[in-house]
Structures are given as C-alpha cells and as structure tokens.
C-alpha cells in the first residue's frame, strides 16, 4: 500500500516523497499515512479530527470522478443562479 504525507493543520496532500515528507514530519508540520493505491492525489485528503484518509467520490474511477466533479460544479452554479434569482425577486420593487 502506498503512503503519502499530509499537512497536519488542514489535511491537504503535501508530498509522496519520503525525504521531503520526513522533514516536515520531524518539524511537526505533516503526518504520514497509508493511502489506497491508484487514487489521484486531488481526491485524497486527511481528516485531522477523525484521523482518517478521505477519498473524494469514493468508488468511482478517475474518469468518472472528474465527470462527477464537473456535474457537481454545474449543479452548484445552477443552484446559485436560482437562489440569487429568488433573492432578487423577493426584494421590494
């Protein structure tokens, strides 16, 4: 199983390389954890509260995860536009 290093104040991936990662660990800035193989790092993060690796869109392939992210982004934009329209419509005319 692969391992990666995560920044320990926000859980973002910092490196997969031992030399660089160990330096940050020694300074107390990162932690090393095991991660599932075959998952791109943009989908991985570390929950510092639960002390667990989080896989975004778990169970999906990389291609499907990218498509899901695109769809989520579009849905978010649509929801924002709708909410904004409702907010504007509710303003006194």
């Amino acid at each position, binding site marked *: 199983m692969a391992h990666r290093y995560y920044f320990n104040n926000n859980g973002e991936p910092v*490196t997969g390389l031992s030399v660089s990662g160990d330096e940050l660990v020694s300074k107390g*800035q990162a932690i090393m954890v095991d991660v599932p193989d075959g998952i791109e790092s943009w989908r991985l993060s570390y929950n510092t509260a639960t002390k667990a690796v989080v896989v975004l869109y778990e169970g999906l392939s990389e291609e499907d995860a990218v498509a899901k*992210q695109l769809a989520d982004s579009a849905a978010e934009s649509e929801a924002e536009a709708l909410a904004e329209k409702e907010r504007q419509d509710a303003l006194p005319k």
Partner: protein
Amino acid sequence: MSNLSTLLGGVAETVDPRKEGLPIFGLLATEATQNHHMTYRIFDSSFRNVGSPWAAVCNSTTNYRFGMLGDASHAYVSYDHGNNFHNNLTSESYSTYINYNHSTYQIDQYPHCFYYSSSRDGFVSWQNYHQMTSSFEYQVGWTKLNMVLPEGCRPRRMFCNRRFTMREMAGNCATGNIQAYDYSSHMLNTDNNYATGTGYNEKMKMLVMIHSGDEGGNTSKVIHIFRGKKDLNKVPRIKDFFDDLESTEYFTDTWTNQNVKDWVVVVGNNGWVGFGLKQSNSKRYGVFDCNVKGVGVSLTGASRQWSTWHDFSGSTTTSYGASSGNQYYTKFHTTWDGTWGMIFSPYYYYGCGINAFCMSLENPRKFVNINQTKSGRSNPWVPWGRTGFHGGWSDNCDSETWQTYAWCFDPTDSDHETTTQVSMGTTSGDSVIPDNNTINPQGGTYTNKTGVVSLSSCRTTLTGGYGSTNYPLLMGVDWWGNYGGQNSGYGGGATTPITA
C-alpha cells in the same frame, strides 16, 4: 531645476523609468448571472484600495452593461459566451478556454494578461474571445524570453525566440514583428535548430538559449551562452546585441522533456542558470554553470551541471502543460525586487493550485518547492510586496473575508548550502505576530532542493465585492505606478531607492 536633494549637496539619482511601485492587483466580483452586479476594485500590496471610483465598475445595476465605462464584450459574457465567473474551473474541458479567467495560466512576469487588460485606476476590458485562438499567448507565448531584471522592473520590451530568429513583439496580439534578427551566424553549433526556451539576465547582459531537435518532445539539446557588451533591453536593434558580444559558448546534452515548449530558463546574477519545466504531472529543475569556461572546453552538460536533475518534491496530480496546448506552457514570475523567481504551473488540470520551484535569482542553486493542492476555485498568482507572491484563492466570499495565499522570502538569502527562510500568513493576526520571538511563525526554514512549502491561506479582511454568493477574480494590472510617485507603501513618496 534644483530639487531639495541637490540644494542640500546631495547627488541626484536617476530612477529607471521602467521601475514601478510595489505590486497592485484587481479584484472582480459578480453575482451569478453578472446581469445586475459587478464590482472591480484595485488594491495595493497592503490590501488598500488604490483605484478610482470613476474608472471602476461600481455596483452597477444596469442590465447587460455595467457602469459608464462598461465593457462591451464581457457584460454579455454569461449569455453571449455561455460562461460565467462562478465556474469552478475544476474539470471544464480545456477546449472551453473562455472559462479560464481564474486560471494560473492568466499571468506571468510580463505586464500583459492573457484575457484582459486593466489600468491601475481600475478600468478593465476583456479581449474578444471570438478569435482568442489566434492570439499571441494562445499560440506562441511560450517563445517569450524569461527575464531577470533590476528591482521594480517588469519586461517592457517583449523578445521572442523561435528557430534561429529573435523577434520583438508588441503584446498579446498577432500584429507584425517590430523587428527580427537571424542570429545563426553567431552560433557555434547548429545541430538543433528549434529555439525552445530562452532566458536573459540584464545585470550580466547574459542571454542563454536552448535549441532542440523539434518543437515536440525531442531530447537533444544545444545550449548557447551569449555574454553581451550592450544590454539587450536598451539596444535599438536585436542585431546590435549580437554584433557586440563579449563571449559565446555552448554545451550539448540530452534532457528529458514531455514538451520542449515548457522550458523556462532562469539566468542568475552569478552566472549559474536554472532550467526547469513541467514534466508530465510533475516538474524538473536542473542548474548549470554558464560562466565563461574558455574556448573548446566544458562542451557537455555533465561538465557544467551542479547536483542532479531534481523532480518536484510536492504533491502532484493530473495537470497539463504545453503538450495539451501551447497556451499551457510552463510560466515564470519574479518578485518585485527581482531577488527571487518562480517556475510554476497548476497543481490540477488547467488552472487550480500551484506546483512551483522558487529560486534565488542571485544564485539559482538555492531553491525550494512550492505547493498548493486545490482542485477548484483557483485564482492566478501575482507578485506581492517586496519579495513575495500571492493568489490562488477564489472561494465563495458570501459571509467570508476574501483570503489569499501569500508568502515571501528574504532578499539576501542566496546561500544554497543553508536552509531557506519562508514567511507565510494565516487566518489569525495573533498567530502572525505571536507573543514570542519565533521568526516566521507560520512559515519556517526549508531544506534546499527537497523542502516543500505548503502554502497557507491568509485573511485579508476584504469583502468579496458582492453581498451574496461570489467568487472574486484576482486580476493582473499592466502598470503598478511610478516608483516613489504613486505608491503609498514601499518607496512611496521617496525619490531615493531604499535598496542599493
């Protein structure tokens, strides 16, 4: 006419007319449709508003046009171009390039931006997207020279190098060459005939260029090192630089590269030269001694290379460079004071986060890895303050202060055998100015070559510019104002440079 300095017996100093005050940037916010609300403001490096209300887009309620100085194209953008500034810029197809206002690729060390032009007063106009694919940056921006310039100066002349010809161009357009010169008669080795990366150091009058066997992935390299007696940025004709050379040397080597258009050439003030590029999802960086060695010696890369090629030490993931499109070539930035440089590209896809090498321009052997691992809500990166950069954040500012990722270096820190000091901020003032004597409490020291600086966000206390959902767009400004004349911060009001 005498001024106070000369009356008192001082020596009148000449400030380089190119020299600007500390960096400023624009911040544009819109509601989702952009129909009824756009706000554009200009801030300096201390996040103070320095724009003009008459030039800015201020709280317009005019449908389809915003403000008395409204932009004809972009007011319609959400409908005419099917695009809006709220796009996440995560997995949008790269063919839909109109989405990339928030992209890391928008801005590099050159004053012009890829998609728009903004005055320091806050008047902004977008390029017309309809023929964007014929623009300079889209097609041949990768041919620009990487410039190492004096304090406060950005490149004001744009030289481009392709095949054996150097050309001077006007900006992000497809107008004709201002001038062109075939320098092949000055070369010592013409085995490879595609110029694929060129750097110039003004202090050293030193021009270093890579020639490859093609404009794809060819690994054969000939590197020429021209030392001039005249400054390339001051000669009327490119030919004048080449006709008055002090020395010409070259070496050959074989370098791994996914695409040769990604090469960035950083010519240091000590004659050492850093060569870096985006390589697949990662990056590579190597440093070579390009000081004069004498006729017929040191003709191989191995005889000049310091250490080894270094792969990026930070986190990497799916991301694209010039192999996916010329406009995604690896870019180069410098700090305002010209003491640190940055070879950079996105962490994710075509614009989010950052993977970068930051190197001392005094000594390119001193470098660290810079990383921000965002996969959405990006913003470009721009110089910040005297010796730093910031950017990379456009998350929703509804009920949130706008945050940026800012960091800076020590301008005198150039010893590659010591660690590198990096100062960063955070979300709490009390953590930046702590009740103890910790130097750089949010940053620290990083080992040369392998150290990874994971950037942290900083609160700016600025509003996003709109009262509901908004994702502020950080924008580059063409002219930061005359040094000492229009800047209220560093150098403001002074006619004497603070640094020598």
